[in-house]
């Protein structure tokens, strides 16, 4: 299994580890609930160095990125970040990712850890523009600082600017405690926060600067366990659970990241034709009406009819009940299941448990 540059640091913090996408990552340091709530109310520190970074640069980079992306990358100006999908020729999602525009014809793609090789191969396969594609994942560490106190903490170490002035989905190249870093106002928690990209060789130095400040603010280091419950509450999909190569963006409710008008991109033809045929699946958010926990793979029923499956599900530490996403049948003739008054049943160990369809995100947070 692969390890991040901070593996020993986590070990010394007595983290419990888990396998995720081929990586040995901290699952939790203390309690998932404690870690989760500390990000919602105070601050948390994450090692996300397993994420992949791919640089696309040189002549043809603008064109290549735009051609791969379902969202309109031409709207990006320098210092901006875009959430987008890559689709294959049949409209299936290759990955969901962030595109950082560093300069004209210069981008950083931040991709899911389990998909680094697949994405690299895909970008290279589609590269007929002459752009240079480089895998920076090995040399890049990613440390996230998330939560309401993240601004105050980061400001302690960035003397030259007020980081609160960096808007959501924008980034700057600066130094954090004299360590060169990309400071990005992004995250996967639904909270105010930052993601800091640094050279892998400086990851431990950066962690050792931020960690004491986080602890002094009564925050916690955060493992993948709480990262999962935080993203779920914020209504954020996870590649590999909620979507994969065989699902299209419409089936998982990511329509707003697909810009079909006046542009060409890979998968567009298939997506247009799927749309014309009618989308047969849809993603809904649900909340359990009893204390039972609906896990991924459990079956979903409505009036006794099997209509789909849970794709993500966990107890919500904030809401104190279980929530999740389910992929269910949608028919143009049936009443829309987006109607949030509808109830469903989820089969858990052979018994039906009631749930209701709710709006996503499950809670409103402050980014």
């Amino acid at each position, binding site marked *: 299994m692969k390890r991040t540059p901070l593996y020993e640091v986590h070990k010394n913090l007595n983290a419990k580890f888990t396998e995720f996408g081929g990586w040995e990552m901290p699952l939790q340091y203390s309690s*998932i609930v404690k870690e989760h709530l500390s990000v919602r109310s105070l601050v948390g520190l994450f090692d996300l160095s397993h994420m992949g970074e791919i640089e696309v640069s040189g002549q043809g980079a603008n064109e290549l990125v735009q051609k791969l992306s379902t969202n309109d990358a031409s709207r990006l100006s320098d210092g901006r970040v875009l959430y987008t999908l890559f689709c294959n020729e049949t409209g299936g999602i290759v990955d969901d990712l962030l595109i950082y525009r560093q300069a004209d014809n210069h981008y950083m793609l931040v991709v899911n850890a389990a998909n680094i090789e697949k994405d690299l191969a895909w970008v290279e396969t589609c590269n007929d523009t002459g752009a240079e594609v480089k895998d920076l994942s090995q040399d890049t560490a990613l440390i996230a600082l998330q939560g309401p106190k993240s601004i105050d903490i980061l400001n302690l170490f960035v003397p030259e600017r007020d980081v609160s002035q960096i808007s959501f989905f924008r980034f700057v190249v600066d130094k954090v405690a004299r360590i060169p870093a990309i400071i990005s106002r992004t995250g996967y928690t639904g909270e105010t926060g930052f993601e800091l990209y640094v050279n892998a060789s400086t990851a431990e130095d950066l962690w050792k600067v931020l960690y004491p400040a986080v602890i002094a603010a009564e925050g916690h280091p955060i493992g993948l*366990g709480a990262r999962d*419950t935080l993203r779920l509450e914020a209504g954020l999909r996870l590649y590999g659970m909620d979507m994969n190569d065989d699902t299209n963006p419409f089936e998982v409710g990511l329509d707003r990241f697909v810009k079909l008008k006046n542009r060409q991109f890979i998968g567009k033809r298939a997506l247009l034709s799927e749309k014309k045929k009618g989308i047969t699946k849809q993603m809904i958010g649900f909340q359990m009406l009893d204390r039972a*926990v609906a896990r991924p793979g459990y079956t979903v029923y409505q009036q006794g009819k099997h209509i789909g499956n849970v794709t993500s599900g966990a*107890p919500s530490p904030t809401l104190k009940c*279980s929530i999740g996403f389910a992929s269910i049948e949608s028919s143009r003739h049936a009443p829309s299941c987006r109607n949030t008054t509808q109830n469903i049943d989820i089969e858990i*160990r052979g018994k039906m448990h009631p749930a209701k369809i709710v709006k996503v995100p499950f809670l409103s947070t402050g980014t």
Partner: protein
Amino acid sequence: MILQNLKYMESHEWAKQEGDIVTIGISDYAQSEIQDIVYVELPEVGTELTQKTEFGVIESVKAAFDLYAPVSGEVIAVNESLLDAPEQVNESPYDDGWFLKIRMTDDSELDALLDAESYQAHIEAEHG
């Protein structure tokens, strides 16, 4: 913490014998490994349990864990307070966090369980 007067299973349930009544819970080690218990599913009073077979489930934020009966017998009491306050299993695994009381059918079954010392050794082996 391992209580000396209890018997244990390798799957971390404890059994406390008082005459032919056996109270069941999970060990302090198990609750600290599982953490954040948010849901407990237990059988009803009157259910017949068989030793070493599943009788219920506990769920943490991360996963579900099966519970196994340390002895065979009829369920005569269920700790209903866990339905609303499952965190008692984390807070008080040997006391408020008990699951069931069983009227044991064969007290020789207790001999198949681990004593405190063997359970301690089992944990150390499991933990590596």
